[in-house]
């Protein structure tokens, strides 16, 4: 019987690729291990090897085809004795459907973000919340008639760095694989070509070394953007980030600070195990002197990274590997930045406030959609910034909904959710109709196996169940 040859995946996060070349033609005999085609993704090129023996009966995807989905049938192999002209691809070998956000929802999310900005004007007075976000911050207006371009988070981050590097010669990017390789996740694509080796710097494998080098360069008047291949590796550099970058302005009596951005993917990816999957938002959020940003969509990622580069303080910029390939609308505005420390109301609701950051915002929005079908109208807040933490927007929302669920990918103990719950009980205790609840990861190091990973990480269903629980008896 005929054998389907499927579009292979290079990594668990790969969704599609370009079929660049066929090395065998229809009618050719192939042996296991023969290279039959070459494919290309945004990460790398690879060769497709034949697994089985047979005759290449039909090529279904011609060479040069872009965006071929993983597991799509690209050719059919006839086994010995089969007539190569008669074989058909099997029915079940259809292309894997890719989950793409519905563009209409994105537009409404942006409109609601605007509403979020205006609702912040009615925030409680500063005396309640003097420690954080005391001045009322507002997102800048996006002028009517502005066009939008669908952009991946990956490209939005790249564009932000390129724009800031064009604008200010002091800005440079440094890290492992950022130059020649164009970034381990291709976030620094084409920066080397545009800005050269003095401003896009490949380092040896020493996170502690290049983080310290960056802090020194920041003291010396440059503006480093330090890329960590993952924030898990920044653990080896955390002394420079906390003891030097965060504290020197204070310790030097205000003479010398470190305007520096530490950026890279944070949190879980897909099957990379305990040492590559931790969410560090709570860790860095604990430190005075550091700003900590964790955007969800591409427009925020771009605008906030630009703000982070311009910020005179050290900024820890937490990205998410599983969002890099996701596309969102980004406004076509020259030099669009957002204030760091301002949350966004992504969906307006009345019954329960769901607060999340980074990838959890997507799950909270999905949960809100499903909760709406059972009559629970949830408001969704994207924190965007962990420090400063925009308690004003959260409290305004809780005063309206009287119920709170925090959503974070990290562990519960000493987490971001705990901080938010404490702030809300402190400032809006009388408004609460139920104890606030937290959705978090299970209290175990993240396992590698797919089934265990899924069980361990928080998801949309966890948020729905927790929201139902706080709304019980309503």
């Amino acid at each position, binding site marked *: 019987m005929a054998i389907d040859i*499927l579009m*292979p*995946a*290079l*990594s*668990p996060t790969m969704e599609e690729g370009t079929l660049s070349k066929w090395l065998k033609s229809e009618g050719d005999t192939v042996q296991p*291990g023969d290279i039959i085609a070459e494919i290309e993704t945004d*990460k*790398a*090129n*690879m060769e*497709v*090897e034949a*697994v089985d023996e047979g005759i290449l009966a039909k090529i279904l995807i011609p060479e040069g085809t872009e965006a071929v989905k993983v*597991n799509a049938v690209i050719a059919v192999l006839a086994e010995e004795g089969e007539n190569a002209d008669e074989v058909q691809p099997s029915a079940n070998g259809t292309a894997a459907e890719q989950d793409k956000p519905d563009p209409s929802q994105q537009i409404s999310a942006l409109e609601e973000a605007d509403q979020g900005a205006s609702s912040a004007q009615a925030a409680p007075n500063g005396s309640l919340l003097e420690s954080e976000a005391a001045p009322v911050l507002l997102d800048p207006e996006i002028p009517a008639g502005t066009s939008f371009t669908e952009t991946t988070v990956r490209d939005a981050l790249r564009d932000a760095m390129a724009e800031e590097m064009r604008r*200010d*010669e*002091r800005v440079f990017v440094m890290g*492992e*694989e950022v130059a*020649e*390789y164009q970034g*381990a996740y291709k976030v620094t694509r084409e920066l080397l070509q545009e800005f*050269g*080796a*003095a*401003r896009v*710097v*490949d*380092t*040896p*494998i*020493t*996170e*502690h*070394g290049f983080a310290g080098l960056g802090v020194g360069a920041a003291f010396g*008047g440059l503006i480093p953007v330090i890329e960590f291949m993952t924030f*898990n*590796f920044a*653990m*080896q550099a955390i002394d420079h980030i906390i003891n030097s970058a965060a504290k020197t302005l204070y310790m030097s009596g205000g003479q010398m600070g470190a305007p520096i951005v530490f950026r890279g993917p944070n949190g879980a990816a*897909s*099957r*990379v*195990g*305990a*040492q*590559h999957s931790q969410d560090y938002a709570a860790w860095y959020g604990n430190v005075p002197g550091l700003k900590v940003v964790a955007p969800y969509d591409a427009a925020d990622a771009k605008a906030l990274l630009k703000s982070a580069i311009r910020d005179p303080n050290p900024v820890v910029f937490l990205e998410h590997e599983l969002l890099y390939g996701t596309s969102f609308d980004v406004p076509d505005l020259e030099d669009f930045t957002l204030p760091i420390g301002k949350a966004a109301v992504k969906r307006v609701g009345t019954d329960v406030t769901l607060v999340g950051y980074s990838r959890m915002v997507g799950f909270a929005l999905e949960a809100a959609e499903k909760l709406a079908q059972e009559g629970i109208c949830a408001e969704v807040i994207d924190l965007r910034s962990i420090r400063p933490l925009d308690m004003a927007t959260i409290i305004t929302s809780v005063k309206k909904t009287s119920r709170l669920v925090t959503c974070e990918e990290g562990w519960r103990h000493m987490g971001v959710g705990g901080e938010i719950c404490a702030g809300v009980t402190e400032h809006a205790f009388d408004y609460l109709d139920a104890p606030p609840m937290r959705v978090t990861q*299970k*209290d*175990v*190091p993240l*396992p*590698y*196996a*797919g*089934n*265990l990973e899924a*069980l*361990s990480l928080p998801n949309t269903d966890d948020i729905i169940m927790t929201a139902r629980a706080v709304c019980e008896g309503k």
Partner: protein
Amino acid sequence: MPENIKDKGVSCVHLTAARFKVYTGRRVVGEEEIDLKPLALFVPEPEFRPGDMPDFSGLELPKAGETRRPPTDAKAEDIRDLAYTIIRVMRRDGEALGPWGDLLDHDEALRGLKNMMTVRAYDARMQMAQRQGKTSFYIQCLGEEAIACAFQHALEKGDMNFPTYRQQGLLISAGYPILDMMNQVYSNAKDPLRGRQLPIMYSSKEHGFFSISGNLATQFVQAVGWAMASAIKGDTRIAAGWIGDGSTAESDFHSALVFASTYRAPVVLNIVNNQWAISTFQGIARGGAATFAARGHGFGIPALRVDGNDYLAVYAVSKWAIERARKGLGPTLIEHVTYRAGAHSTSDDPSAYRPKSESEEWPLGDPIERLKTYLIKVGAWSEERHVQTKAEIEAEIMALQKQAEKSGTLHTGDGPSPKEMFEDVFKDTPLHLRRQRQASGV
């Protein structure tokens, strides 16, 4: 001084300085007026990039057999030359020469050959399994098989390796079941690490193989700590640390050398210089001034630089260093010079940063071919037996693969037990984790 790759680079890199206040031009210093020239940054470059024709004819390789073999109690300062040469035993025609050359009898050398062939066959199957979607990730050690296999060959049971991710040969040579390795790669119901660790990050205390760390270089200083503990306890076991050329830039590498030197720890510190840290060539971590082996000199640690594709040489050098450690004479730093013939991992494509033919042009040859040529030359092996053995090993690996796949692969089977996910977070499972497990319905 022979260098692996000539030092090439771009000097005179600087910003156009429009925004900076810089101090250049004529200045008075004391009674003199001098012209201060702008400083320039040097950025090293590999000799060959894609599109270039790699040519290693300028590389000076010492002849096999010509390097001296000092006694194991030699002082670091008396053997400095051995960090700047390459210790080699086998000539291209298979002749084994010199004082490092006669340590393994033919049967033992044959055992080494079979172990290397097993590693290569295993890698090839697992690499293909990744392409077929049966695992998410794989790292092969193509071209580097001799280093781990020969080193393990020289160790004793009970000694402890702190490896990095291209030393599967240590496990296979130590007799760790390949079926268990496959079950872990597939993360299936029989995964010995119960679904918790990445596919190639094996761990077996019994086989002297510490759990590999994804955060590079941390194991290097831990190896020194383990060795010091062995000494404090009055044990006889020694440790071996492993690191790649790129990761020697990590602080842990330097800390390891400080402690190993100060306390004369019974440890062998191995640097596998395979020329490439993903896309970054070894010169970025080394600089042009010295070899990686010579890093030991600043710490007074004897350092040897060995042809990593020469099984007999790796065995002899390892034996020397292990004996030193076992006699309480302190640490040895070994630089194994080799070439990463394959991609860094299944997520990498080297054609973007190095010429495709560089691997074939690499002058140290293939470790399996070289040992085979030697064994044929001495009459202990033949081309026919080699072909037959290769087929047998491949068939055995394929049979094991089929057996492993019965317990599941990345996307098939039940996977590891969800119930066990909550165990081993702490030595005794606390109440809140038991509650989380119950609430998860597992």
